[in-house]
């Protein structure tokens, strides 16, 4: 994904350059900024981005004078540098774990070219493997096999997108929702139980699985909203603790015969009925399932909710300033409960995607790390629906590519994850990249330096 990123920047850059730089509003927290911006443009100026292919360009609204636009003004080069920097540092990390590099390093002074070639090969091989595992594998023996990696990316992105939307929606209403993990688990428990314990006709069964999951997630999230609204307890504490409650409750359930396979006592549920699982969109050769279509639907729904509906306007108003919203006649308690319930329902869709889409069983690892990755996805997507969607795809691509990177190059999975985290870190934090290159006098070129300075003064909220 990141390879596609740089060419897209100039377009946004150009548009940005046509806008005169305006004085900026300093130091708003990121999500507040986003909310303020959106309230400003709530008249209908906002539209989904035409190019959601990368995390950053995904959330650029169509309207002219937004703060976000200004943030990205002149940041095209920064993005290029971000990817470049991540690739270099990641490449060196990969090289440091490569056995060939280690062996050639032992005679570095005798023949340095061997060492440098080894470093170069180790890094490029890994990135090629990442691409082949996430987007397109030219070595596949059929067209279907060649596109299999992309399908895998979409599959892994599915739960990330829906859980990310839940987190993003809560962010927009000013709530830091750490609870996606627990919401996925509760949804997974209910959906899986309906899936393996009940035996219903085709169609109805899956529908009920989906409803059970969404309701489960919505209840788990909504409960947090109720506690927050009624008692003022902080949602961060609540959601974290609710995650633990959900996980340990799941572990307890998996130790009861009702959630185990007949005749076995391993903590793993029976397999869901065939009528209870998502159909695979492009046949059994890919894992891609109906849940991805629903994730697209959810993205549209959240976009509509936030930008076109009264409820969404209230969410954003509460997120921007709860006191002002209350004064303006908005029921803040109701908004808090409702937004947490909807966020939980969205995370619940991830739980359903897990048990009815890919895993088809319930284990204590049903939520994997999706609930926490969702937070990064939402932040990377700047808490906008399509930004989250794009960030989910990016994360999905990384997770899918990691398998190939590990197998083809023997890079340890932990290093793969470190490299990917670096890439995300640099993409998500342009000011960091500016600082890195601003401090390096050897790289200074007049034009770029000027741009960097201008960008730096237009706000650091990104």
């Amino acid at each position, binding site marked *: 994904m990141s390879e596609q990123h740089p060419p897209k920047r100039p377009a946004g850059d150009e548009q940005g350059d046509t806008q005169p730089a305006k004085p900026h509003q300093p130091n708003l927290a990121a999500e507040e900024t986003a909310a303020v911006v959106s309230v400003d443009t709530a008249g209908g100026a906002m539209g989904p981005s035409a190019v959601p292919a990368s995390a950053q360009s995904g959330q650029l609204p169509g309207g002219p004078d937004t703060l976000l636009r200004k943030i990205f003004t002149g940041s095209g080069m920064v993005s290029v540098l971000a990817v*470049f920097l991540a*690739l*270099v*540092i990641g*490449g*060196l*990390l990969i*090289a*440091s774990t490569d056995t060939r*590099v280690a062996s050639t*390093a*032992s*005679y*570095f*002074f*005798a*023949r340095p070219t*061997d060492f*440098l070639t080894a*470093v*170069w090969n180790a*890094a490029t091989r890994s990135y090629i493997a990442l691409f082949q*595992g996430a987007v397109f594998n030219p070595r596949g023996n059929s067209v279907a*096999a060649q596109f299999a990696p992309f399908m*895998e990316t979409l599959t*892994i992105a599915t739960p990330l997108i829906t859980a990310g939307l839940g987190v993003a929606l809560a962010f927009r209403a000013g709530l830091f929702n750490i609870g996606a993990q627990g919401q996925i688990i509760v949804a997974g428990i209910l959906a899986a139980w309906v899936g393996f314990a009940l035996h219903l006709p085709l169609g109805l069964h899956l529908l009920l699985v989906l409803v059970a999951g969404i309701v489960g997630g919505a209840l788990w999230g909504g409960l947090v909203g109720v506690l927050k609204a009624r008692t003022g307890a902080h949602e961060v504490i609540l959601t974290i603790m609710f995650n633990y409650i959900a996980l340990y409750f799941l*572990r307890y359930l998996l*130790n009861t015969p009702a959630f185990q396979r007949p*005749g*076995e*006592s*391993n*903590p*793993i549920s029976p*397999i869901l009925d065939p009528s209870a699982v998502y159909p695979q969109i492009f046949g059994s050769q890919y*894992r891609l399932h109906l849940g991805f279509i629903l994730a697209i639907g959810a993205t549209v729904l959240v976009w509509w909710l936030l930008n076109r509906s009264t409820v969404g306007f209230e969410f954003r108003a509460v997120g921007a300033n709860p006191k002002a919203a209350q004064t303006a006649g908005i029921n803040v308690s109701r908004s808090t409960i409702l937004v947490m319930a909807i966020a939980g329902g969205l995370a619940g869709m991830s739980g359903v995607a*897990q048990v009815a889409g*890919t*895993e*088809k*069983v319930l*284990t204590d*690892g*049903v939520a*994997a*790390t999706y609930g926490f990755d969702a937070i990064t996805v939402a932040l990377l997507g700047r808490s906008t629906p399509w930004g989250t969607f794009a960030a989910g795809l990016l994360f999905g691509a990384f997770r*899918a590519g990691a*398998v*190939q990177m*590990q*197998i*083809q190059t023997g890079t*340890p*999975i932990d290093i793969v*994850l470190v490299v990917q985290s670096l890439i995300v870190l640099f993409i998500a934090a342009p000011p960091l990249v500016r600082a890195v290159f601003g401090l390096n006098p050897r790289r200074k070129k007049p034009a770029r330096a000027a741009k960097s300075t201008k960008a730096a003064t237009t706000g650091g909220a990104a």
Partner: protein
Amino acid sequence: MTSLRARMKRGSMAGLATVSASALLLTACGAAPEPGSTSSAGASDYTGCIVSDSGGFDDQSFNQSSYEGLKKAEKDLGIKVNQVESKTNNDFEPNLRAMVTAGCDLTVTVGFLLGDATKAQAAANPDSHFAIIDFGYETPISNVKPIIYDTAQAAFMAGYLAAGTTKTGTVATFGGIKIPTVTIFMDGYADGVKYYNEQKGKDVKLLGWNKDAQDGSFTGDFEKQDVGKQLTRNFLDQGADIVMPVAGPVGKGAGAALQEAKNSGKDVKLIWVDSDGFLTAPDYKEIMLSSVMKQMGEAVETVVKEDKDGKFSNTPYVGTLANDGVQLAPFHDFDSQVPADLKSELDQIKKDIVDGKLKVESDASPKA
């Protein structure tokens, strides 16, 4: 991208490289090898692969043992090896699929959690062979060989040993998570203690596991060593002097608690599981009475060798005392302290179990 290369070159010269600069300098003065001296791994085209569960290959438990077995096969048999670690349960299917695509002749999967994924891939790829550690299928699959262990047999000996060695008349055990591959140790241990009491008319007590109720003490995972330490302290307070933790790395928590007790003058001992703890957990050598070993590495190597020689079968490999798949480890430093009588009794027990005169049964025993 050429600038990338230039930059990397400059970067490494300037010491920006994350490769440890000092190590580089210390070792970088060696002579360059002659061109053309390539190091080929082996002559065989056979590829053996392994997919871990989320514990990873450094779990000091079955992932690690199985992986080491495969690496040993790489060295001994000259095969190619491909490995992939799963970080979460979601990785199982993609990882397995990728292994099959990468042309693996035999893919070893580790643990019951991979049971479904292995079954699915085996069905989709009838020409590929699979082996799964610590899990057996109700209905055998033609291209999957389960590698399972009747661990209760060796644990029985450990229980007898513990009961015959204890000074306080109380021994203990605890588990990581209540799953069959853990409780089978505890069942065997409990029966060993019981057998000792019957034979000797003694009343050695066992803490931490009730075989009849199938319930006992668990730490809840295979990670939190401090919980294992706390449990072990509780056992010590209740008078136990020998503890067998069945909890992978959490066993180190038990080791730490026992070592503290030892340092304060108490005569306490530890029984390790899975591997010979005297070698794999040398920090606790001083208190390591023995270990209940599951020879997973050997089993993996054997299965790979059979498959490579074209003798693959889906008959489960069941590790027993008879085939040395499970064993009681040597006493090492405690050798002189274990009475000769007890040693010969243990030998007799082993013989009786192998001959079938002594039946060791557990709910978790492999049904074969």
